Each structure stands twice: as C-alpha cells, then as structure tokens.
C-alpha cells in the first residue's frame, strides 16, 4: 500500500502552478489544456508558449480552425457524448435524476454545429475542463501540429 497518498482535495497543489506563477492570468484564460480534467487523452499536456490570442471567435469561419466552447458545468464527463454525423458535430449531454440543494434535477440537451467541409471525427479533439468548459476543436489547430 505504500505510495498511496490520500489528501483532502483542498490541500491538493495547483496543477501547472508555474504556468500561473507570473500572474499574467489573462494570458492563460484560453489555454484550455491547463484546466483539463485528468484523463487518458491528456496524459502529457503540451503548453504552447505563444498565446492563442488571435483565436477566431467560436466556430470560426476559417477552414483550418474550428473551435466550439460549451458551458457544461452541470454535467460530468461521462454524461457527454460527442458525435459527428454527415458533416455535423453533435454534442449530447444527459444526466439522470440527481440530488442537489433544492431537490432533484435531470437535464439533457443536444447541440449541433456545422463542421467545415471534409472534417472527420479523427480530426477533432475534445477537452473537458474542470471549470465546466467543454472545448471541441480541430487537432491541427495551434499547439498540436
């Protein structure tokens, strides 16, 4: 059992503290990988030094950059399904009845976005951030090369 350390989560050190250390927090607000939930798809996070300041607005018209941001604070990663279907990106989120401070709640939604021509499922990557933002973007967008 040695090597197993259980800490209360409040004491857990901030991940990527050095990235935030210089306090130019504004510069890091679009570095979604810094906020990504731990998972198999993000075992090694690559931080690109250049800030993606010149990012297109969401669902940018440019064929090379496609990015969708969605606020899914109310959902867990396992509640969300991302599909592509005939040139459309479908994001389905559904959670069954769960308890909250006011009683019980269940929610579901389906969002559709038109993908740029020729985009396939393998071109897309998705990041679920711990602050509830879901990012779906083209893999060859800045940083991945």
């Amino acid at each position, binding site marked *: 059992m040695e090597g197993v350390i259980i800490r209360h989560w409040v004491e857990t050190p901030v991940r990527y503290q050095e990235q*935030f250390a210089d306090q130019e927090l504004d510069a890091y607000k679009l570095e979604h990988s810094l906020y990504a939930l731990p998972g198999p798809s993000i075992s090694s996070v690559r931080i690109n030094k250049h800030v993606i300041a010149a990012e297109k607005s969401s669902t940018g018209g440019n064929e090379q950059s496609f990015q969708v941001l969605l606020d*899914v604070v109310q959902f867990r990663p396992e509640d969300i399904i991302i599909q592509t279907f005939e040139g459309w990106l479908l994001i389905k989120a559904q959670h069954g009845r769960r308890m909250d401070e006011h009683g019980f709640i269940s929610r579901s939604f389906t969002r559709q976005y038109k993908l740029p021509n020729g985009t396939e499922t393998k071109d897309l990557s998705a990041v679920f951030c711990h602050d509830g933002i879901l990012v779906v973007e083209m893999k060859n967008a800045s940083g991945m090369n």
Partner: protein
Amino acid sequence: MAERTVPHAYPMSTEYEFANPSKMYDQNFGEGLSPSEILAPTLYHGYYIRPRINKQLDRGISEISLNDHKFQVFLDVCHFLPDELAVRTVDNLLEVVGQHPQKADRHGFISREFTRTYILPMDVDPLLVKATLSHDGILTIVAPRTGKEVKARVNEVQITRQEQPPGQAEHPEEGKGNGKP
C-alpha cells in the same frame, strides 16, 4: 469516477458554501461560449477556474423563499416558451418539466430538456399551488402554508415475546453450531 475530486462548478456567493442555500445559480444549461466571454482565472479552493461573463448574478437562478404564510419558488426558464413548460405536483413533490425542440440560437442549434423536483413543506396543500411565468422568463410558483404543525402520528408497536420451546431447553447451542464459538 463517481466522486469528483476537482471542484466542478463554482459558487456565485459565499452562501453557496453552506448546506442549503435559498438561491442557486447555473440553472441555465447547454449554453455556448465565445472566448471573449471567459474572464481571467481566479483561484478557488486551490484550483484556477475561469468565471464567465454570461453568468450575470440574477440569471439562471433557482430560489426557494419560505415564510410562515407561503412557499415560493423562482426558477429561471428563459430558454423555454410557456407551452414548453409543465408544472405538476405528485404527492408532496413539485415537478417542473421543460422541453423544447431543436431551435437556433446565436451559437448553433440546440434542444433541451429538464425536470426539476422541489419538495413541498408538509403544511402546503398541493392543490393550492399556483404558477406564473413572467415576461423575462422567471417562473414563479406560490402556495399558501397553513402554518399548522403537522402532528406526527405515533403508533406504539407491541413486541410479542416468543417463549422458548420446552423440549430444546437442554442444548440450544448445538442446534445452531455456527452461532457461537
């Protein structure tokens, strides 16, 4: 991964930290974001989170206000049209159901569905519940409270004792050998 170790939602007020806030935020769901709506990260419980512009303080709320005379609920349902909403009571549960088919908003196409259940206090008559939808999409549900203490019905249950059968009095232990060492 049933237990979340990373704070997932962020509170809009210190009241949220306590067990039963009368007001909750973040009830509007499925909302698109654009990068300009994300604000600079702030530290919350040891994690950096990014507040959003579109969470103005008085939208996306669910609020319960309770006093001696009435039970009142405010729920933001601004994504739903009046005929896409249904309110009903099942025993002492108050259910609000909203469902809208696919429609276009500024980020794309979306369809939504939710069911929220509130628990009515014991002295509220479910048949007297009234619901109003305001022009800006806040659903108000009101019900009078009688203020009467609901008497708990206590019923003492007699315990019948079973006598030991006289024949087995000699060796009760051997009969159920596993019971004792």
